């Protein structure tokens, strides 16, 4: 808009993945706001996108969903300025979000360089645990996953600002593997991941070993042609890498010398799951090696 100010526009919405309407609203809102944070921006305004079966579900349920969304928009420091609702067989909710950013601060997934460290700010496994939840299994893990999905990437984005971040993306439906592959391809590099360093939600790997793997993980696996696992990486951990995330964390590439300081800053600020998971190794066509 001006040499100092640019707009970011994004939207996302989906069907309920938890039973509680307020929590659903929170997760959907956090998910929609995340794209702004992944670009290094600040959410400014948001509008509700709603589909609701008003004939079959009580209006109170819709009010709870909207209240959940509002709570996250407020936490982001943004303004909810309206929205649109239509009738539909299945409820869906999300946001259209406008964010602000200085043009020279925009982060994309295309700037990662050989020698960069890769930092991940949220634990993996939301897809696996939401599948487990359908069977009433792993309550502790399910609860941790819900809290993780409802958490904004706001603090992580703010911590990132004082560092020399080369590339950033948020980890969502394509899983860590898919979003990392997008980054390595766009940046023209290769990456190496240490599977033992991956932050896992409680019981996520167990859920994978028990076959509670969502269909999306198998789709992600078949689309990630450039991922190579060492023989020592269990199938369960591989499934975690492909597990589609909802409202996942930020995947950040920055100079290796700054990595520990960023991880410390994130953890001090309350982003307790933040950890270095690997590095960008060399120039290349997007290959990823997981050890």
């Amino acid at each position, binding site marked *: 808009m001006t040499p100092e100010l640019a707009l970011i526009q994004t939207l996302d919405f989906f069907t309920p993945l938890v039973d509680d309407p307020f929590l659903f609203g929170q997760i959907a809102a956090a998910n929609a706001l995340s794209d702004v944070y992944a670009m290094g921006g600040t959410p400014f305004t948001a509008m509700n996108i709603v589909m609701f079966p008003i004939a079959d579900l009580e209006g109170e349920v819709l009010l709870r969903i909207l209240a959940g969304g509002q709570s996250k928009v407020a936490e982001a420091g943004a303004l909810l300025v309206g929205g649109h609702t239509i009738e539909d067989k299945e409820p869906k909710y999300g946001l259209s979000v406008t964010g602000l950013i200085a043009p020279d601060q925009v982060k994309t997934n295309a700037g990662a360089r050989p020698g960069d460290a890769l930092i991940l700010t949220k634990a993996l496994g939301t897809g696996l645990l939401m599948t487990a939840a359908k069977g009433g299994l792993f309550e502790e893990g399910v609860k941790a996953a819900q809290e993780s999905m409802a958490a904004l990437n706001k603090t992580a984005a703010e911590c990132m600002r004082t560092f020399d971040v080369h590339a950033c993306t948020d980890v969502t439906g394509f899983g860590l593997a898919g979003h990392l592959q997008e980054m390595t391809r766009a940046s023209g590099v290769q990456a190496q991941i240490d599977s033992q360093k991956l932050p896992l939600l409680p019981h996520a790997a167990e859920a994978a070993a*028990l076959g509670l793997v969502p269909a999306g993980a198998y789709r992600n696996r078949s689309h990630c042609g450039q991922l190579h696992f060492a023989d020592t990486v*269990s199938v369960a951990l591989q499934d975690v890498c492909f597990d589609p995330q909802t409202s996942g964390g930020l995947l950040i590439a920055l100079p290796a010398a700054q990595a520990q300081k960023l991880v410390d800053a994130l953890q001090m600020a309350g982003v307790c799951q933040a950890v270095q998971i690997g590095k960008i190794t060399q120039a290349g066509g997007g290959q990823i090696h997981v050890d």
Partner: protein
Amino acid sequence: MSIELDCRGLACPAPVLETMKELQKMSAGTLTVLVDNPAARENVSKYATAQGCTVQSTEQNSGQYALTITKGSDGTEVAARQLLPSLNRTMPAPPQEVYLLTSDTLGRGDDTLGGVLVKSCLVCLVERQPRPKALLLLNAGVKLAVLESPVLEHLRRLEQQGTEIIACGTCLDYYGLQDQLAVGSVGNMYSILEMAAGHQTLTL
């Protein structure tokens, strides 16, 4: 004993859940599970393998699979169950800070204000996550930990919550307060420096 379970048309994770129920009912024998997509085939196989069973998959008509699961003796199941807990990783705990207080007031300019600030700081430290690992008290800082201290209750709260409070012995002696330490323990310069150097230390 051989049982057939038709899971065709069931959405994820129902094929695994139905297989789970059947396998739990069986003591030993064969269970054949029918599924109609590769994801279900993979998931049911994974579940059965994790339970210590052997699994054989055959493709029937296009896109349909029969999984023949053989449940063996209790020995194999115990081995499988032992595998799973090792996959559950404890999340790393966030680093804990150490605070070094070298006076009973915070900052320079006005000592009354400094007294208010140190109290306010300790109130915040009581609430802050993660809990401070330790408070190190040097010079007039030791006065915070003696009987008459206006912030004694906050230091005691911190100590109850697991924060170590170390007051320099030389300083207590200098101020004639050696018998009045009401919270924490007496340390020397060596132990204080060792704690400070070994952690992320903030000097207030």
